[in-house]
Protein backbone atom coordinates (compact mmCIF):
# COMPACT_ATOMS: atom_id res chain seq x y z
CA UNK A 1 0.00 0.00 0.00
CA UNK A 2 2.96 2.25 0.60
CA UNK A 3 3.80 2.64 -3.07
CA UNK A 4 0.19 3.44 -3.89
CA UNK A 5 0.17 6.09 -1.20
CA UNK A 6 3.42 7.53 -2.55
CA UNK A 7 1.86 7.79 -5.97
CA UNK A 8 -1.24 9.40 -4.53
CA UNK A 9 0.87 11.99 -2.74
CA UNK A 10 2.72 12.75 -5.97
CA UNK A 11 -0.45 13.29 -7.93
CA UNK A 12 -1.92 15.29 -5.06
CA UNK A 13 1.06 17.63 -5.11
CA UNK A 14 1.00 18.15 -8.86
CA UNK A 15 -2.70 18.81 -8.67
CA UNK A 16 -1.96 22.14 -7.03
CA UNK A 17 0.64 23.25 -9.53
CA UNK A 18 -0.26 25.53 -12.37
CA UNK A 19 -1.18 23.75 -15.60
CA UNK A 20 1.57 23.59 -18.16
CA UNK A 21 -0.66 23.46 -21.21
CA UNK A 22 -1.96 26.49 -23.04
CA UNK A 23 -5.10 27.13 -25.03
CA UNK A 24 -3.55 26.73 -28.41
CA UNK A 25 -5.09 28.99 -31.00
CA UNK A 26 -5.79 31.72 -28.45
CA UNK A 27 -2.51 31.41 -26.64
CA UNK A 28 0.73 30.23 -28.17
CA UNK A 29 4.02 29.28 -26.71
CA UNK A 30 6.70 31.56 -28.10
CA UNK A 31 8.78 30.20 -30.94
CA UNK A 32 12.52 30.16 -30.60
CA UNK A 33 14.42 32.51 -32.91
CA UNK A 34 15.87 29.66 -34.93
CA UNK A 35 12.53 27.97 -35.41
CA UNK A 36 12.15 26.47 -38.86
CA UNK A 37 8.68 26.62 -40.32
CA UNK A 38 8.02 26.68 -44.01
CA UNK A 39 10.45 28.40 -46.36
CA UNK A 40 9.70 31.86 -47.75
CA UNK A 41 11.38 33.96 -50.42
CA UNK A 42 13.20 37.11 -49.48
CA UNK A 43 12.74 40.45 -51.19
CA UNK A 44 15.67 42.61 -52.18
CA UNK A 45 14.37 46.02 -51.20
CA UNK A 46 17.38 47.78 -52.66
CA UNK A 47 16.58 46.69 -56.18
CA UNK A 48 12.89 46.07 -55.57
CA UNK A 49 13.07 42.52 -56.84
CA UNK A 50 13.54 39.10 -55.32
CA UNK A 51 16.97 37.76 -54.47
CA UNK A 52 16.00 34.54 -56.15
CA UNK A 53 17.27 34.04 -59.68
CA UNK A 54 15.34 30.87 -60.26
CA UNK A 55 18.49 28.75 -60.55
CA UNK A 56 16.60 25.64 -59.39
CA UNK A 57 19.31 24.41 -57.05
CA UNK A 58 16.82 24.18 -54.19
CA UNK A 59 14.42 22.33 -56.42
CA UNK A 60 17.07 19.76 -57.25
CA UNK A 61 18.07 19.24 -53.66
CA UNK A 62 14.61 19.19 -52.18
CA UNK A 63 14.20 15.70 -50.74
CA UNK A 64 10.43 15.62 -51.18
CA UNK A 65 10.31 17.37 -54.52
CA UNK A 66 7.82 19.87 -53.24
CA UNK A 67 9.30 22.84 -55.11
CA UNK A 68 8.94 24.03 -58.63
CA UNK A 69 11.02 26.91 -59.94
CA UNK A 70 11.18 28.69 -63.26
CA UNK A 71 13.62 31.34 -64.41
CA UNK A 72 13.26 34.21 -66.81
CA UNK A 73 15.35 37.09 -68.14
CA UNK A 74 15.36 40.00 -65.75
CA UNK A 75 13.83 43.06 -67.44
CA UNK A 76 15.63 45.28 -64.94
CA UNK A 77 18.97 43.95 -66.09
CA UNK A 78 18.32 45.35 -69.56
CA UNK A 79 17.63 48.79 -68.14
CA UNK A 80 20.65 48.58 -65.86
CA UNK A 81 18.64 48.84 -62.65
CA UNK A 82 19.83 45.49 -61.42
CA UNK A 83 22.85 43.27 -61.71
CA UNK A 84 20.79 40.07 -61.84
CA UNK A 85 20.69 38.78 -65.34
CA UNK A 86 18.06 36.19 -64.56
CA UNK A 87 15.20 36.40 -62.14
CA UNK A 88 12.65 34.00 -60.76
CA UNK A 89 9.60 33.67 -62.96
CA UNK A 90 7.65 31.20 -60.98
CA UNK A 91 8.23 29.57 -57.64
CA UNK A 92 5.79 27.21 -56.01
CA UNK A 93 6.15 25.17 -52.88
CA UNK A 94 3.71 22.43 -52.13
CA UNK A 95 3.41 23.09 -48.43
CA UNK A 96 1.57 19.86 -47.87
CA UNK A 97 4.70 18.07 -48.89
CA UNK A 98 7.35 20.34 -47.42
CA UNK A 99 9.05 18.77 -44.43
CA UNK A 100 10.73 21.96 -43.19
CA UNK A 101 14.16 20.40 -43.43
CA UNK A 102 15.95 23.65 -44.45
CA UNK A 103 17.98 22.00 -47.19
CA UNK A 104 16.73 24.57 -49.72
CA UNK A 105 18.03 27.35 -47.47
CA UNK A 106 21.40 25.72 -47.07
CA UNK A 107 22.02 25.06 -50.72
CA UNK A 108 20.89 28.48 -51.96
CA UNK A 109 23.73 30.42 -53.51
CA UNK A 110 21.94 33.74 -53.44
CA UNK A 111 20.65 33.71 -49.89
CA UNK A 112 17.24 34.16 -51.35
CA UNK A 113 15.22 31.69 -49.34
CA UNK A 114 14.82 31.44 -45.61
CA UNK A 115 12.99 29.38 -43.06
CA UNK A 116 10.14 31.49 -41.72
CA UNK A 117 8.20 30.96 -38.56
CA UNK A 118 5.05 30.09 -40.47
CA UNK A 119 4.04 26.60 -39.60
CA UNK A 120 0.28 26.62 -39.38
CA UNK A 121 -0.67 25.90 -42.90
CA UNK A 122 -2.86 22.90 -42.44
CA UNK A 123 -5.55 22.95 -45.05
CA UNK A 124 -8.32 20.99 -46.59
CA UNK A 125 -6.59 20.17 -49.85
CA UNK A 126 -3.88 17.59 -50.31
CA UNK A 127 -1.98 20.00 -52.53
CA UNK A 128 -1.64 23.19 -50.59
CA UNK A 129 0.60 25.10 -52.90
CA UNK A 130 2.08 28.49 -52.16
CA UNK A 131 3.01 30.63 -55.11
CA UNK A 132 5.36 33.60 -55.40
CA UNK A 133 3.19 36.22 -53.67
CA UNK A 134 2.54 34.00 -50.69
CA UNK A 135 6.19 33.08 -50.38
CA UNK A 136 7.26 36.73 -50.43
CA UNK A 137 4.58 37.57 -47.94
CA UNK A 138 5.65 34.76 -45.62
CA UNK A 139 9.18 36.03 -45.58
CA UNK A 140 8.10 39.63 -45.09
CA UNK A 141 5.88 38.66 -42.18
CA UNK A 142 8.65 36.68 -40.65
CA UNK A 143 11.08 39.55 -40.99
CA UNK A 144 8.61 41.99 -39.49
CA UNK A 145 7.96 39.68 -36.60
CA UNK A 146 11.42 38.56 -35.72
CA UNK A 147 13.87 40.82 -37.44
CA UNK A 148 16.41 38.26 -38.45
CA UNK A 149 19.05 39.64 -40.72
CA UNK A 150 19.21 38.24 -44.24
CA UNK A 151 22.69 36.97 -43.56
CA UNK A 152 21.62 34.56 -40.88
CA UNK A 153 24.50 32.24 -40.24
CA UNK A 154 22.66 29.03 -40.98
CA UNK A 155 22.82 29.32 -44.71
CA UNK A 156 25.21 27.49 -46.99
CA UNK A 157 26.39 24.94 -44.56
CA UNK A 158 25.43 21.68 -46.16
Amino acid at each position, binding site marked *: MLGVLKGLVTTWKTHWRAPVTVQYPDERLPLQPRYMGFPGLMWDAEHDEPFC*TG*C*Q*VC*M*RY*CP*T*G*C*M*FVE*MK*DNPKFATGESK*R*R*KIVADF*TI*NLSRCISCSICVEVC*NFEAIEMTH*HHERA*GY*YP*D*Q*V*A*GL*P*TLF*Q*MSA*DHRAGVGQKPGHETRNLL
Partner: protein
Amino acid sequence: MADLDEQSQPTPSEPAPPARPVPARAPAGPPPGERTPVKPTAQALADHLALAWPDVEHHARFNFGDIELTMPAGQLLAAVERCRNDPALAFDYLMCVSGVDYETSIEVVYHLYSYQHHHHLTLKVTLADCDRPTLDSVTAIWPAADWHEREAAEMLGITFLGHPDPRPLLLDDDVDEHPLRRSHQLVAVYADRPGIVEEPDDD
Protein backbone atom coordinates in the same frame (compact mmCIF):
# COMPACT_ATOMS: atom_id res chain seq x y z
CA MET B 1 19.77 12.13 -58.17
CA ALA B 2 22.71 12.19 -60.48
CA ASP B 3 20.64 11.72 -63.61
CA LEU B 4 18.18 14.34 -62.49
CA ASP B 5 21.01 16.79 -62.17
CA GLU B 6 21.68 16.58 -65.85
CA GLN B 7 18.06 17.02 -66.81
CA SER B 8 17.66 20.22 -64.96
CA GLN B 9 21.02 21.86 -65.54
CA PRO B 10 20.74 25.56 -64.90
CA THR B 11 20.76 27.67 -67.97
CA PRO B 12 24.21 28.93 -68.91
CA SER B 13 23.29 32.52 -68.18
CA GLU B 14 22.94 31.76 -64.49
CA PRO B 15 25.45 33.73 -62.46
CA ALA B 16 28.20 31.45 -61.31
CA PRO B 17 28.02 30.54 -57.63
CA PRO B 18 30.49 32.52 -55.58
CA ALA B 19 33.78 30.71 -55.41
CA ARG B 20 34.48 29.24 -52.05
CA PRO B 21 37.74 27.85 -50.81
CA VAL B 22 37.68 24.10 -51.07
CA PRO B 23 39.78 22.62 -48.29
CA ALA B 24 42.59 20.39 -49.35
CA ARG B 25 41.61 16.77 -49.79
CA ALA B 26 43.14 14.18 -47.59
CA PRO B 27 46.46 13.05 -49.07
CA ALA B 28 46.24 10.29 -51.60
CA GLY B 29 47.36 6.91 -50.37
CA PRO B 30 45.72 3.81 -49.04
CA PRO B 31 41.94 3.92 -48.68
CA PRO B 32 40.66 5.65 -45.54
CA GLY B 33 39.90 2.41 -43.79
CA GLU B 34 43.51 1.33 -43.82
CA ARG B 35 44.89 4.60 -42.54
CA THR B 36 43.26 4.05 -39.16
CA PRO B 37 45.54 2.27 -36.70
CA VAL B 38 44.68 -1.36 -36.07
CA LYS B 39 42.98 -2.06 -32.76
CA PRO B 40 44.93 -4.38 -30.43
CA THR B 41 42.00 -6.79 -30.21
CA ALA B 42 41.83 -6.91 -34.00
CA GLN B 43 45.56 -7.63 -34.23
CA ALA B 44 45.22 -10.52 -31.78
CA LEU B 45 42.27 -11.80 -33.74
CA ALA B 46 44.18 -11.58 -37.00
CA ASP B 47 47.03 -13.57 -35.52
CA HIS B 48 44.65 -16.24 -34.34
CA LEU B 49 42.91 -16.40 -37.69
CA ALA B 50 46.18 -16.74 -39.54
CA LEU B 51 47.05 -19.73 -37.36
CA ALA B 52 43.71 -21.44 -37.09
CA TRP B 53 42.01 -20.91 -40.42
CA PRO B 54 44.29 -22.34 -43.05
CA ASP B 55 41.51 -24.51 -44.46
CA VAL B 56 38.99 -21.73 -44.96
CA GLU B 57 39.68 -19.88 -48.12
CA HIS B 58 39.56 -16.22 -47.26
CA HIS B 59 41.12 -12.88 -47.89
CA ALA B 60 41.76 -10.67 -44.89
CA ARG B 61 42.39 -6.97 -44.54
CA PHE B 62 42.10 -4.27 -41.94
CA ASN B 63 39.34 -1.73 -42.30
CA PHE B 64 39.07 1.10 -39.76
CA GLY B 65 41.05 -0.85 -37.24
CA ASP B 66 38.95 -3.98 -37.50
CA ILE B 67 39.60 -7.14 -39.41
CA GLU B 68 37.54 -7.96 -42.45
CA LEU B 69 37.42 -11.35 -44.17
CA THR B 70 36.17 -11.95 -47.68
CA MET B 71 35.30 -15.47 -48.66
CA PRO B 72 33.39 -17.34 -51.36
CA ALA B 73 29.82 -18.33 -50.66
CA GLY B 74 30.60 -22.00 -50.20
CA GLN B 75 32.89 -21.30 -47.26
CA LEU B 76 30.38 -19.30 -45.29
CA LEU B 77 28.75 -21.97 -43.17
CA ALA B 78 32.03 -23.52 -42.13
CA ALA B 79 33.39 -20.09 -41.28
CA VAL B 80 30.43 -18.90 -39.23
CA GLU B 81 30.22 -22.13 -37.31
CA ARG B 82 33.80 -21.71 -36.37
CA CYS B 83 33.23 -18.06 -35.50
CA ARG B 84 30.44 -19.05 -33.16
CA ASN B 85 31.99 -22.12 -31.59
CA ASP B 86 35.73 -21.54 -31.48
CA PRO B 87 36.31 -20.40 -27.87
CA ALA B 88 39.01 -18.03 -28.99
CA LEU B 89 36.58 -16.33 -31.37
CA ALA B 90 33.19 -16.79 -29.63
CA PHE B 91 31.27 -14.39 -31.81
CA ASP B 92 27.92 -14.56 -30.09
CA TYR B 93 26.45 -11.30 -31.30
CA LEU B 94 25.51 -10.89 -34.93
CA MET B 95 25.18 -7.16 -35.23
CA CYS B 96 24.12 -6.72 -38.78
CA VAL B 97 23.59 -8.51 -42.04
CA SER B 98 23.76 -6.19 -45.01
CA GLY B 99 23.46 -6.86 -48.66
CA VAL B 100 25.20 -4.59 -51.15
CA ASP B 101 24.55 -4.65 -54.84
CA TYR B 102 27.77 -3.86 -56.71
CA GLU B 103 26.05 -4.36 -60.06
CA THR B 104 28.58 -6.98 -61.17
CA SER B 105 28.25 -8.92 -57.96
CA ILE B 106 26.31 -8.93 -54.76
CA GLU B 107 28.00 -8.86 -51.42
CA VAL B 108 26.55 -9.98 -48.13
CA VAL B 109 28.28 -8.52 -45.13
CA TYR B 110 28.08 -9.90 -41.60
CA HIS B 111 29.22 -7.74 -38.71
CA LEU B 112 30.08 -9.79 -35.69
CA TYR B 113 30.99 -8.98 -32.14
CA SER B 114 32.00 -11.07 -29.19
CA TYR B 115 30.74 -10.15 -25.75
CA GLN B 116 33.38 -12.40 -24.29
CA HIS B 117 36.49 -11.08 -26.03
CA HIS B 118 35.17 -7.66 -27.09
CA HIS B 119 36.41 -7.98 -30.63
CA HIS B 120 34.75 -7.24 -33.93
CA LEU B 121 34.87 -9.11 -37.18
CA THR B 122 33.44 -8.39 -40.59
CA LEU B 123 32.66 -11.34 -42.82
CA LYS B 124 32.03 -10.68 -46.49
CA VAL B 125 30.63 -13.08 -49.01
CA THR B 126 30.63 -12.22 -52.67
CA LEU B 127 27.92 -13.67 -54.83
CA ALA B 128 28.89 -13.52 -58.48
CA ASP B 129 25.53 -14.56 -59.88
CA CYS B 130 23.49 -11.37 -59.83
CA ASP B 131 20.41 -12.92 -61.39
CA ARG B 132 19.93 -15.70 -58.89
CA PRO B 133 22.09 -14.95 -55.88
CA THR B 134 21.95 -17.81 -53.41
CA LEU B 135 23.53 -18.16 -50.02
CA ASP B 136 23.25 -20.40 -46.99
CA SER B 137 21.23 -19.02 -44.11
CA VAL B 138 22.99 -18.52 -40.80
CA THR B 139 19.80 -18.46 -38.72
CA ALA B 140 20.67 -21.82 -37.21
CA ILE B 141 23.81 -20.31 -35.73
CA TRP B 142 22.50 -16.86 -34.90
CA PRO B 143 18.71 -16.54 -34.56
CA ALA B 144 19.34 -12.82 -34.89
CA ALA B 145 19.91 -13.28 -38.62
CA ASP B 146 16.26 -14.16 -39.15
CA TRP B 147 14.74 -10.82 -40.06
CA HIS B 148 17.96 -9.43 -41.47
CA GLU B 149 18.03 -12.22 -44.01
CA ARG B 150 14.37 -11.87 -44.83
CA GLU B 151 14.94 -8.21 -45.44
CA ALA B 152 17.97 -8.81 -47.64
CA ALA B 153 16.03 -11.48 -49.51
CA GLU B 154 13.22 -9.17 -50.50
CA MET B 155 15.29 -6.06 -50.98
CA LEU B 156 18.06 -7.58 -53.06
CA GLY B 157 16.56 -10.84 -54.25
CA ILE B 158 19.01 -13.08 -52.46
CA THR B 159 17.73 -16.58 -51.74
CA PHE B 160 18.80 -17.79 -48.32
CA LEU B 161 18.87 -21.55 -48.32
CA GLY B 162 17.54 -23.14 -45.17
CA HIS B 163 15.83 -20.04 -43.84
CA PRO B 164 12.98 -21.19 -41.60
CA ASP B 165 10.50 -18.51 -42.60
CA PRO B 166 11.23 -16.97 -45.99
CA ARG B 167 8.17 -14.70 -46.23
CA PRO B 168 8.63 -11.08 -47.26
CA LEU B 169 9.19 -8.89 -44.25
CA LEU B 170 8.75 -5.22 -45.02
CA LEU B 171 7.21 -5.16 -48.47
CA ASP B 172 3.84 -6.34 -49.63
CA ASP B 173 3.51 -9.95 -50.61
CA ASP B 174 2.90 -9.09 -54.24
CA VAL B 175 5.93 -6.87 -54.80
CA ASP B 176 8.15 -8.69 -57.27
CA GLU B 177 10.87 -6.06 -57.56
CA HIS B 178 13.94 -5.79 -55.42
CA PRO B 179 14.13 -2.12 -54.50
CA LEU B 180 17.69 -2.04 -53.25
CA ARG B 181 19.14 -3.29 -56.51
CA ARG B 182 21.03 -0.50 -58.22
CA SER B 183 18.99 -1.14 -61.35
CA HIS B 184 15.79 -0.24 -59.55
CA GLN B 185 15.05 3.38 -60.36
CA LEU B 186 13.22 5.74 -58.08
CA VAL B 187 10.39 7.61 -59.71
CA ALA B 188 11.31 11.27 -60.06
CA VAL B 189 9.18 12.89 -57.44
CA TYR B 190 8.35 16.16 -59.11
CA ALA B 191 7.54 14.75 -62.52
CA ASP B 192 4.07 16.16 -62.37
CA ARG B 193 3.78 19.71 -61.33
CA PRO B 194 0.81 20.38 -59.07
CA GLY B 195 -1.58 23.12 -60.00
CA ILE B 196 -1.40 26.28 -57.96
CA VAL B 197 -4.11 26.66 -55.38
CA GLU B 198 -3.54 30.02 -53.76
CA GLU B 199 -5.41 29.73 -50.56
CA PRO B 200 -7.38 32.77 -49.42
CA ASP B 201 -5.64 33.39 -46.12
CA ASP B 202 -4.87 36.21 -43.81
CA ASP B 203 -1.22 36.71 -44.67
